[in-house]
């Protein structure tokens, strides 16, 4: 049975020194309990505008057909699938941070995992939306599911697209369960602090009568461990399957064995970037500096730097193999990416994903909030272009030059894409408005006070007692 290891000697604390357990509860719950700051309302109304744009765009799409988008022969897929893959990718940070870092005992994850998981849910929702609306006849999309019907016909399990349906569906469900499981103890906290009866009822309902009983904690922790355990391969499998949509095809530029790992890394990369983008803003607005320390950001930036290098390596490998394979079609596609009509997209991608993140080699950059925020935005852009490059530049010039063509996005393309971002943030803002944005019980578990051997003889100061004493105590502990 696994316990969060407690603060070891010399280890930097994961929360602001001197914080008490109660401080954590206060800091986190305040966000969801007190009135939202001005900034929240501004952000939310902007998001709503884009939600409207999204609604209109999708309505147009359904009314006229896929032709309302810029998709055409030979680029039968374009922004629709680009957005799908982009959102799925972003959706990977959540489970990764929660599960993988949990397995690797990266205790610093506790500050950000709740964020990341919530983000996962909304991102994957976005992805599923695009998967749903990109089909020509959405009203018969149920053909995708193995339902008995009077045609006595079943879906074809040979199609990677169907694998996708199961993979993404599973991923969303499991992420939801994982997120909710982690939420239960904190919901109990919200319940116990609730002042109005309806808050009490709602939070109470979802807290399912959690009593922090140790007999429950025992099963709870095991469940959490198992979920983390199965989510880790799930994360990897899901984006591998998404990659197989392309890898199992025969289109030069798609038919590549490197795709699954390459996509997974890309997903982690973009996911962390998006977490960063959102986290920094929330940290500022909701004054979470106490739980989200520069150290956390530093560590995340290290991950970003690592994945950025891996991505760069993947790009290089693709080119090498294209040359080494001696396949003229393959080689042409990659030449075309670098110098063809879409080279601008390709180089945007390279700069944003490989060049820019290199500044994180400098520690000062890794802890400089404005810088990392800009970088994270650029990475989001870069990763979107990566998918665009893979999909459009591979399709627009494949085997027979006679069928080559160009893709031009329509206004509806732009509407659906930007709109989906609006939907994402709207959902996310609501999450921050009503739910604990940091996993309190987990953070508390990492604190000095969580350690039973923590100076028993002078108990944790009562509320209101100056924090200095606690800090002193901590210092003493550190020396002895």
């Amino acid at each position, binding site marked *: *049975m696994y*316990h*969060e290891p407690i603060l070891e000697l010399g280890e930097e604390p994961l929360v602001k020194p001197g914080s008490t*357990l109660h401080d954590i*509860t206060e800091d986190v719950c305040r966000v969801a309990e007190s009135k939202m700051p001005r900034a929240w309302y501004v952000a939310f109304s902007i998001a709503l505008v884009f939600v409207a744009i999204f609604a209109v765009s999708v309505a147009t799409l359904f009314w006229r057909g896929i032709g309302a988008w810029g998709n055409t022969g030979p680029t039968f897929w374009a922004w629709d699938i680009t957005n799908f893959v982009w959102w799925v990718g972003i959706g990977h940070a959540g489970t990764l941070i929660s599960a993988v870092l949990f397995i690797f005992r990266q205790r610093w994850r506790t500050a950000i995992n709740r964020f990341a998981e919530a983000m996962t849910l909304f991102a994957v929702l976005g992805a599923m939306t695009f998967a749903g609306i990109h089909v020509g006849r959405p009203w018969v999309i149920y053909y995708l599911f*193995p339902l008995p019907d009077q045609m*006595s*016909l*079943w879906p074809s*399990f*040979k199609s990677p697209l*169907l*694998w996708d349906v*199961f*993979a993404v*569906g*599973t991923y969303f469900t*499991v992420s939801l*369960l*994982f997120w*909710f*499981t982690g939420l239960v*103890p904190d919901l109990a*906290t919200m*319940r*116990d602090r609730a002042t109005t009866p309806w808050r009490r009822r709602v939070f*109470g*309902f979802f807290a*399912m*009568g959690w*009593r*922090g*009983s*140790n*007999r*429950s*904690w*025992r*099963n*709870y*922790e*095991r*469940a959490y461990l*198992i*979920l983390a355990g*199965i*989510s880790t*391969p799930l994360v990897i*499998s*899901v984006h591998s*399957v998404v990659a197989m949509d392309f890898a199992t095809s025969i289109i030069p530029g798609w038919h590549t064995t490197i795709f699954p790992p390459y996509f997974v890394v890309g997903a982690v990369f973009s996911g962390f970037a998006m977490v960063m983008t959102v986290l920094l803003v929330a940290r500022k607005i909701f004054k979470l500096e106490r739980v989200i320390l520069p150290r956390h950001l530093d560590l995340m930036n290290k991950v970003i730097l690592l994945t950025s290098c891996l991505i760069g390596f993947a790009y290089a490998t693709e080119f090498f193999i294209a040359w080494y394979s001696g396949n003229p079609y393959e080689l042409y596609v990659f030449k075309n990416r670098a110098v063809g009509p879409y080279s601008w997209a390709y180089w945007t991608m390279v700069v944003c994903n490989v060049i820019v993140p290199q500044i994180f080699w400098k520690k000062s950059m890794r802890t400089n909030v404005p810088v990392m925020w800009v970088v994270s935005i650029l990475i989001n852009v870069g990763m979107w272009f990566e998918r665009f490059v893979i999909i459009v530049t591979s399709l627009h010039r494949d085997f027979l030059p006679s069928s080559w063509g160009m893709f031009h996005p329509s206004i509806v393309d732009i509407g659906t894409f930007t709109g989906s971002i609006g939907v994402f943030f709207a959902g996310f803002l609501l999450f921050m408005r009503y739910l604990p944005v940091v996993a*309190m*019980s*987990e953070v*508390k*578990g990492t604190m000095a006070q969580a350690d*039973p051997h*923590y100076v028993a003889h002078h*108990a*944790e100061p009562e509320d209101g007692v100056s924090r200095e004493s606690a800090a002193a105590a901590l210092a003493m502990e550190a020396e002895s």
Partner: protein
Amino acid sequence: MTSQSASARMTSRASARALNRRAARVEKTQLLLAEFENTSDVLHAAEVMRRAGYQKWDVHSPFPIHGMDAAMGLKDSRLGWTVLLFALTGLTGAFVMMYWMGGVDYPFVAGGKPPGALPPMAPIIFELTILFSAFGTVLGMLHLNRMPRHNHPVFSSERFKGASDHRFFVSVDSRDKNFDAGRTRALLESNHASFIELIEVTS
């Protein structure tokens, strides 16, 4: 329509029975709730209780406490087995579904691949295994913890709200064979319980 009402009736009967059972159980029992201020005290208290041979008791904390299971003498969680069961169900279920649909019920050739071919099944088999395991984990956990249970005696205590914030509690059920309101209270007091209350559990 008919079957709906039937199910409704059925549930109501079931609920009635359940109620009686509960009523019988919680008839005139008490719950002793001792509050502690920090982890070390409650851990210590837990040790004491175990040695004192208590059975129907529990510890409440805002986060899992290192070493508490040992202190309470709890055995390892049995959750893993449930999950394994679900996982196997998912695995075989996925395979059987795909093989029957694609290979038996409506076989057809696509791309020159024979119907019911195994390789393309791999991803979905894997995904469904995971999916079922996930459900197994959560449902299993809820079952082992007897959750959801929205109404519980401890909630009657105002102070117990601290249990989800920064306080620690030991609760003892009066039906425990060693339970004695006075002695148990003394025992806990002597172990730095900062506050103790006795909750009357009546229907």
